[in-house]
């Protein structure tokens, strides 16, 4: 009877400790997952807030060189912007321009620096058009110009 009582207590003890350990493990694991996701999302939000750019062309004088119209984008935010045709999508009058029809130079700009978007002149006819440049995190600027 005495041995039986001790065994029962021992089983209760082991069960309680095991359950507490499992619950603690789950809590810590869930907390770590939530923290990691929140951290990533938060950093992404902070980066998004810090990114801003503006198309600064003279709308009546779009320069053309070697078959490409040149549009200037100025980094007016706080962070470096990667400028290539993976991070930037170009729309002319609402139509997405194929990546093969434009390129950007240089490949990144720091705050207050200017990058050039070279758009194949076959994609833009004469007349008034609307260019929309969509950059990192979906930040965009729209510019109305006349060729």
């Amino acid at each position, binding site marked *: 009877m005495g041995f039986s009582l001790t065994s029962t207590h021992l089983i209760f003890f082991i069960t309680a400790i095991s359950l507490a350990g499992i619950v603690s493990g789950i809590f810590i694991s869930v907390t770590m997952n939530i923290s990691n996701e929140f951290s990533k999302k*938060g950093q992404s939000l902070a980066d998004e807030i810090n990114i801003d750019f503006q198309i600064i062309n*003279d709308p009546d004088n779009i320069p053309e060189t070697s078959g490409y119209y040149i549009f200037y984008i100025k980094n007016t935010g706080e962070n470096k912007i990667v400028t290539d045709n993976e991070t930037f999508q170009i729309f002319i009058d609402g139509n997405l321009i194929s990546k093969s029809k434009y390129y950007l130079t240089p490949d990144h700009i720091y705050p207050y620096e200017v990058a050039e978007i070279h758009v194949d002149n076959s994609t833009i006819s004469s007349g008034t058009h609307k260019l929309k440049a969509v950059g990192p995190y979906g930040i965009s600027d729209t510019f109305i110009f006349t060729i």
Partner: protein
Amino acid sequence: MGFSTIGATLIIGISIIAMLSIFSTEILPVVFDINDSYRDLENRILEKSQTSINITNVTLSNVGGNLLLNVTVKNTGSVSLNTSDFSILVNGTKKSFTATKSVIHPEKEAIFTITVSSSGSKRIKVITYNGVADYAEYGG
């Protein structure tokens, strides 16, 4: 039963402390980063609303065979402007320039000098660091 309760409470207590520690080390810095970013955004919007420039004069001179376009820009806003952060377009093309001052304080002027290849009419756009701009035309 008493030991079981104490042991389980101790384990759960330690795990709660660990959770709080993870939360504070992972999440608080991000919250501070977001807060800083919003403060920067607020400052950018405020500075943009307080930035204004006016091109007050444009002249073309020939110095030693070089055609120099001199563009006088007045800071009509209430924010000091670094001239190195300006961009200047002449007939739509971005040009490099020199400036007589590194900073234009409110109500002060600086002269920007740009080398051009020909005389004739010029359309000039001067853009500040935050995208505020002014236009001028030179008749040639």
